[in-house]
């Protein structure tokens, strides 16, 4: 028997289908959670605390962008093989983006060029030297010149300065060194370079520095990165020599030495901003927001010249001492 369908029947069927669609949409909406973007922050060195400021900045930016930052340090200071292995591992383990502080500009740059990780990446603090690869950090040359200017301001007498030439495989250190050596500012009458030769390269830098300190009399020693500053401090602690130390560093240990007047003056980068801007820039590029990425690329990372006198100034203490978290 043919059943006669009324228009109301079709209306009910349509409403029923509508209800099914709504239920599906609702269930989907309830299940739907934006996947968190996993960012691996691969840094050189093995000291987590050294990167507290950078990590805090990256975390603050990540909170805005539904991302999560994992700090990955190395077991050694400057092993490019280990860092490339970490880059490869993180890319394979499902990281959505990489933020890297390159331990060796040449090696890491070459690796990245030949083995693109397949996910967005950017560099912070120290890049690969390739102008096409984005790096977020304070202007290294400017910092070196600021340091030279500070020495010039502080040291009025004839001086002999030694520049520790260590970790120059890092792009940031190399740039600082180049800028310092080529600056027009007269920060010393005689500048010597302390660089480990091939026989000493595997030995602790502290021993090399102690030897140099006993062998060669200098008035000022300049260290261009946190590692060098700390190694120098370790080397000088028991030598009882009146040497003025200047440096560019970002570790709490170096700040401590400034506080204790063992370091005369320190150039200190705003690593919080570096982490914040670096991550924003990386994720903006990942999302294809070129305009936003360019805006962050143009953002200048600040640095401060601190010494025992001004380190507790409001602006400097905010820069030097990360608040408790």
């Amino acid at each position, binding site marked *: 028997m043919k059943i006669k369908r009324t228009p109301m029947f079709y209306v009910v069927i349509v409403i029923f289908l509508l209800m099914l669609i*709504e*239920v599906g949409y*609702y269930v989907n909406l309830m299940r739907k959670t934006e996947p968190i973007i996993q960012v691996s922050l691969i840094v050189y060195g093995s000291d987590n605390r050294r990167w507290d400021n950078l990590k805090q900045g990256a975390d*603050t930016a990540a909170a805005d962008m539904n991302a999560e930052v994992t700090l990955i340090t190395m077991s050694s200071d400057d092993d490019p093989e280990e860092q490339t292995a970490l880059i490869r591992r993180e890319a394979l383990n499902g990281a959505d983006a990489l933020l890297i502080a390159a331990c060796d500009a040449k090696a890491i740059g070459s690796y990245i060029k030949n083995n693109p990780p397949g996910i967005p990446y950017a560099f912070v603090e120290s890049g690969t030297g390739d102008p096409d690869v984005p790096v977020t950090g304070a202007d290294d040359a400017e910092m070196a010149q600021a340091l030279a200017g500070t020495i010039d301001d502080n040291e009025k007498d004839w001086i002999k300065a030694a520049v520790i030439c260590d970790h120059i495989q890092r792009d940031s250190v190399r740039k600082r060194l180049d800028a310092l050596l080529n600056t027009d500012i007269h920060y010393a009458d005689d500048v010597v370079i302390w660089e480990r030769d091939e026989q000493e390269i595997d030995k602790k830098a502290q021993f090399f520095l102690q030897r140099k300190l006993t062998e060669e009399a200098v008035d000022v020693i300049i260290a261009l990165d946190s590692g060098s500053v700390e190694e120098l401090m370790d080397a000088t602690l028991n030598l009882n020599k009146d040497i003025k130390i200047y440096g560019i560093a970002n570790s709490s240990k170096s700040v*401590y030495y400034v506080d204790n007047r063992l370091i005369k003056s320190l150039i200190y980068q705003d690593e*919080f901003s570096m982490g914040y801007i670096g991550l924003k820039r990386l994720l903006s590029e990942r999302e294809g927001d070129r305009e936003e990425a360019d805006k962050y690329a143009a953002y200048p990372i600040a640095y401060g010249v601190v010494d025992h006198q001004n380190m507790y100034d409001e602006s400097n203490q905010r820069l030097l*001492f990360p*608040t*408790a978290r």
Partner: protein
Amino acid sequence: MNKRLNRLVSAVKNTYKRRSIQFIISISFSLIAVLGVLMTGFAMYSRFSERLRENAIEKDKQVLEQVAWNLNTYIRNMMSVSDSFYYSVVKRTDLSKDSFIGEMDLLYEANKSNIVSIACVTKDGALIGASPVSGRKEGVDFSKQEWFKSADEKIADIHFSTPHVQNMFENSNYRYYWVVSLSRSVELTRGANIQRGILLVDMDFSAIEQMFMKANEGGRGYMYLMDRNGEIIYHPRQRAIYSGLISENNRAALGYEDGSHIENYNGEERSVIVKTIGYTGWRIVSVTPTKDLTLSLSQTRIFMVMILTGMIFVVLSGNMFISSRVTDPLRQLDESVKKLEEGDLSEEHIYVGGTHEIMHLGRTIRSMVVQMRKLMEDMVKEQRDKRRSELDALQSQINPHFLYNTLDSVIWMIESSRYRDAIDMVTSLASLFRISLSRGDNIIPIRDEIRHAQNYLSIQKVRYKNKFTSNIDIDPAIEDFCTIKLIVQPLIENAIYYGSLDEDSEISVKGYEKDGDIYIEVTDNGMGIPEETLKTLLTEKSRTRGKGSGIGLWNVNQRIQLYFKGNYGLEIESELDEGTTVRIHLPKITYEDYKKGGELS
């Protein structure tokens, strides 16, 4: 406008009129129900969203109150530490003879989870004592520190600093503490001399930080703390603010009264709740973007739409089911009545079902149909009986005319002493009546009918003094078949009366079987019947009484058709001046069969 409205109303009315009851019920109820559901839904949603917003603000207020209470308690505790040390220890200690370092250590140990250090210095900035015991940093001049200057300027108050890194004592392990300094002016006793000093309690900023971090966990917005000058003490993104990466509307919030406010900052509308902490004048500010206040509302909106759709589905399905339940029986009953209109009087086709009322209606209609059919049958029977009675009455009309004429002839014969002829005539008359009676049967064998016709002819011949001759030729084979009585005699009577008899007139009666039927013909050679008269002979118009017995051809024809139905009856052939043949067409039914079954058709 009114015309349009009226046209619309009348269009709706017309549409309604043309539609079935089920359509009207389901559409009307559905529209009303859907309208009700939607109105209820929208009212609920509106109320709910407003309530949600109010609840969110209320919840933020509660959290803020809780944080304010915790912070106030913490500050009061710190003030208590300061008070108790000052009034219980410093005031009672003569520094010329004694020291309060021990009590200071005890106090620090009791509160070290919230205190970084306690120190007391003279108005010249000389350290009297500090806990925990550690070396004073080289070159640190207490008198130049903010906490010292504040306490020195306003000696009656307790002062709270903004967060800063403590810079007085040597630290080990490169650790630095962010503290909020609580400082006050105190009186120091040295023998007979009373001199001023400053008591400092450095509160661990991380305690405040933890307090706010917990409150900010998982919330929609965030809370920050600022001092009475609008300087940020705590902010969840403090370092980003310090670095100039983001900004906060703290300066504007400074102008807000305690309570809820709505502000627009950096293109975003925000709900701001402000609460001032008693003694310090610090202000806790809770900030929630208004879009986040109703963040879950979009899910709720979809949920509401889903529920409304479900309700509408249930309502429409229910309406459809109920309306079909109510109207289907009516529709079926309507179809039954339509069949009834078309002439189908069988009561089993009348639908009986549905609700009690409709079932009752169906039963009533069925009962009416039964009664109607009975009435119609009764009416038909009554008409038939009536017609039979009429025909019987017509049939009985033969007797008086004929009897009168016959008896008149008998009288005439007796008067003229023709006794033999009179006897024969009376005998024929007696025989005629005997056959006429036939024990009341209308159906008789053809033999009897023919005998009856012979008797009639005999009588009429006497009466008409043998003016005509007659001839009867009946096939003996048909004599036992049935006929209706007194159908041949009227035909002979007509032939006699309308045949214009003379000496050459002849009336012949012939009976035979043809094609399974019986035919009896009465033929005369009279003047014939005009064609126009011939056409009306078997119609109702011919029922006029003329000369003769009054039994017309119509009556004979009607009687045959009444009893035998079908194509039986009379056939008339006539030509003017040639004569007329009237043929009786009868079915072939034996009288014996008729007697057994009693059925003629």
